[in-house]
């Protein structure tokens, strides 16, 4: 892991309320799909904590996709190229997709598309062509679809039906799982979606990795703030045990 005081090099605004921030590596930003960085601008006392964002691109530039939901994400989305930001990472454990020969099905909900995009592109780079299921409330919240489409087979669901299937992304997943019973699942999105995906997977004994979120302070395994209760009854820490965990660990059936 590294801590960098670096600068924003470019900002794309793929849709209202979203910003794709690129920042300079010194010399390189490293990381695997599913890993994240803790990011903060030079804005003083408030908000005081750094914010967690999944890596979307690594290399000479790193990139994160920010969805504006509160004051920290607002500040980040309002930044300009040249502004200073602090980046700590790569943090946590990413998706493990090495040597998984089977069909990969990636499920993204909302801004959960960030690590899923990087995962899809990594898979594509290694010669796979994953199936990507991407859900959002409406078409205005679907971002970076072209990039997804060049990495895999994309199917889209929106709750308001403004694009693709009207309904939940898990509806699409159900269909795919019927055709592809031996798939490997990789999912990131809101808690409700992750739970639904995980339970489908657990019920079918389909291997499934989910990228979870939790309020964080340190991002480095030290504050013990990001605990989630695992099925085992133990606490797991999203920043250091996760954010990618096996669906079984969290949503496995009671024994």
């Amino acid at each position, binding site marked *: 892991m590294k801590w960098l005081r670096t600068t924003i090099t470019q900002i794309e605004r793929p849709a209202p309320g979203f910003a794709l921030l690129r920042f300079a590596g010194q010399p390189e930003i490293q990381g695997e799909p599913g890993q994240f960085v803790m990011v903060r601008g030079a804005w003083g006392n408030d908000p005081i904590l750094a914010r967690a964002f999944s890596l979307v691109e690594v290399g000479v530039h790193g990139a994160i996709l920010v969805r504006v939901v509160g004051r920290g994400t607002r500040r980040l989305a309002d930044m300009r190229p040249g502004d200073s930001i602090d980046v700590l990472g790569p943090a946590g454990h990413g998706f493990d997709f090495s040597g998984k020969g089977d069909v990969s099905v990636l499920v993204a909900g909302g801004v959960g598309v960030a690590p899923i995009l990087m995962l899809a592109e990594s898979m594509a780079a290694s010669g796979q062509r994953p199936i990507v299921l991407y859900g959002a409330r409406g078409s205005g919240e679907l971002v970076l679809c072209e990039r997804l489409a060049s990495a895999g087979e994309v199917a889209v669901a929106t709750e308001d039906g403004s694009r693709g299937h009207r309904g939940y992304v898990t509806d699409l997943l159900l269909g795919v799982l019927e055709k592809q019973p031996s798939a490997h699942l990789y999912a990131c999105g809101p808690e409700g979606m992750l739970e639904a995906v995980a339970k489908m997977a657990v019920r079918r004994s389909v291997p499934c990795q989910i990228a979870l979120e939790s309020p964080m302070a340190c991002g480095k395994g030290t504050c013990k703030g990001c*605990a989630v209760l695992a099925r085992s009854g133990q*606490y797991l820490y999203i920043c250091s045990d996760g954010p990618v965990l096996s669906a079984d660990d969290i949503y496995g059936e009671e024994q």
Partner: protein
Amino acid sequence: MTGILETRLGPLKLKNPVLVASGTFGYGVEYEDIMDISRIGGICVKGISLTPRPGNPPPRVCETPAGMLNAIGLANIGYDAFISGPLQRLRELCATVIVNTYGTSAEEFAELARRFDKVEGIAALEVNISCPNVNAGGIHFGMRPEPAREVTRAVREATRLPIIVKLSPEAIDLAGVAQAVVEAGADALAVMNTIRGMSIDVDTRRPRLGSVMGGLSGPAIRPLAVRLVYEVHKAVSAPIIGIGGVTCLQDALEFFLAGASAVQVGTANYSNPRTSLDIIDDFETYCIEHHLFPSDLTGKVQI
């Protein structure tokens, strides 16, 4: 490094007076990949108990204006694992280790002190009688002079290590508690731990913390901490470590002027884990430019 920052807190000698606060820097070793942790004046490790503790139900942290609430519940790996794991590495890295200890009785505190007394590589004990996030022990010892005195005396009898007693802003008579623990043998005082607060998610109508209340920390509470350091400094002559919302040299100097002989950086580590090193560098420059030692500043606020 000129040595200009070298600091004495009673029997405790430190490279410099900028420490990291317990619970906000893990066991220290987690940060060796991003910084030279041996440069830190002292690493107060996460509160250690005799046996491991899983901590409180999540969510355990939430953010508040210019601060945060935490209710970690002293999740820690326990004495044995600490001794055989992180402490070894801390020694290899030549870090200055201050062990924050937590017990539910004076006897538990004493037992921890007795054990640490025999362990190498520990600079001091920080006795946490001020944690607000546990049902037993913690703040319950720190609210009034008598229990605070009792715990301190038990620890004093159990070890020759320098003892820092960490006080609570919720103490009913903080100056009284300070006097009591100094009488009972504390070598230094850490002022302050968090003050309890609460935050509610108005959409879900649930508390933002799993255990309802948590300790408030960060810049938001700095004015309170500076005031308490000032008051404790007037009440006792023991050295004081100022804690609460330190983010930069200016903040550290504020504590010194109020009466502190050292400071700890807590929440600011989450903004930037290198905060303590930045303050150390700036402090050294400041001392050189102003021809003074940190101790020249202690208590020098002009009233």
